[in-house]
């Protein structure tokens, strides 16, 4: 059992982080906390993808470290697939990280709009104000 848990511990960590993030997004009342939860949630997904790309058995970072000019042209013969990590998940996650920061930026801008209107960032207080003013 313990071995089973350890053998996939990255997956467990990502599950835990994803749940923490999801809990903060749904259960917390403070809007900034929701955004913090959102960041954790997205980075959990990113961690999952990066874990997909890992390759055991002497694989290194996906950068060809030899002499590029010598290898160019007859690269097929030289490059051994087993010695490099799968680059595709990394590419996808570069995109996802940038998307997450873009979402965070827009969300923070919305947050400032909300603060301007209600002068608070607690969801329950906002709901109270909305109920009182009828908006």
């Amino acid at each position, binding site marked *: 059992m313990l071995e089973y848990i350890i053998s996939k511990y990255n997956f467990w960590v990502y599950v835990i982080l994803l749940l923490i993030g999801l809990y903060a997004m749904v259960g917390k009342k403070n809007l900034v906390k929701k955004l913090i939860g959102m960041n954790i949630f997205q980075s959990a997904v990113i961690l999952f993808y990066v874990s997909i790309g890992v390759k055991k058995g002497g694989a290194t*970072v996906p*950068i060809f470290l030899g002499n*590029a000019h010598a290898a*160019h042209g007859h690269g097929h013969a030289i490059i051994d697939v087993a010695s490099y990590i799968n680059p595709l998940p990394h590419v996808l996650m*570069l995109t996802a990280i*940038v998307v997450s920061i873009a979402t965070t*930026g827009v969300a*923070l*801008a919305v947050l*400032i709009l909300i603060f*301007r209107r209600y002068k608070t960032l607690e969801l329950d207080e906002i709901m109270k104000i909305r109920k009182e003013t009828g908006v």
Partner: protein
Amino acid sequence: MTIKRTVNMTKQSDDVIVKTLSRLLIPFMQIYALYVIAHGHYSPGGGFQGGVILGASLILLAITYGLDNALRMMSERLNTILCSLGVFIYAGIGLLCIMLGGNYLDYGALDKILHVDIAHARSLGILGIETGVGIAVMAVMASIFLDISTGGLPSTKERDQSD
């Protein structure tokens, strides 16, 4: 306990250490960011990382020397144009490929105007798009920061009136 006073992040800092060090650091940050963009082919890095570091150098300038000085280096209008320009470089290279007879974003077609073999044409195409990405990311990061930290009033006079 709520803290009523909001902190103005973009006023000139009065700490001589922070100011001097950031003054010395900013050119090196910028050159490092450009290095990251240009050497994305050989080492980790590329347009996004370099662009973000460039944007961070502008943000550092805004935090330490105040917003007005930062805007003197990069005005709002220039900033918006750079946002557009960055994405336009990317999409424009793609369109150029169509005009040269390839598919969209097929940098291999660029060899007709660059006079190198296809592999190197692709390499140069990647460099071109990374430059575009870097410019766009830099401008956008700086602009988002300025908007959020000033609440959308980057000019000092009106900000003082409204606060």
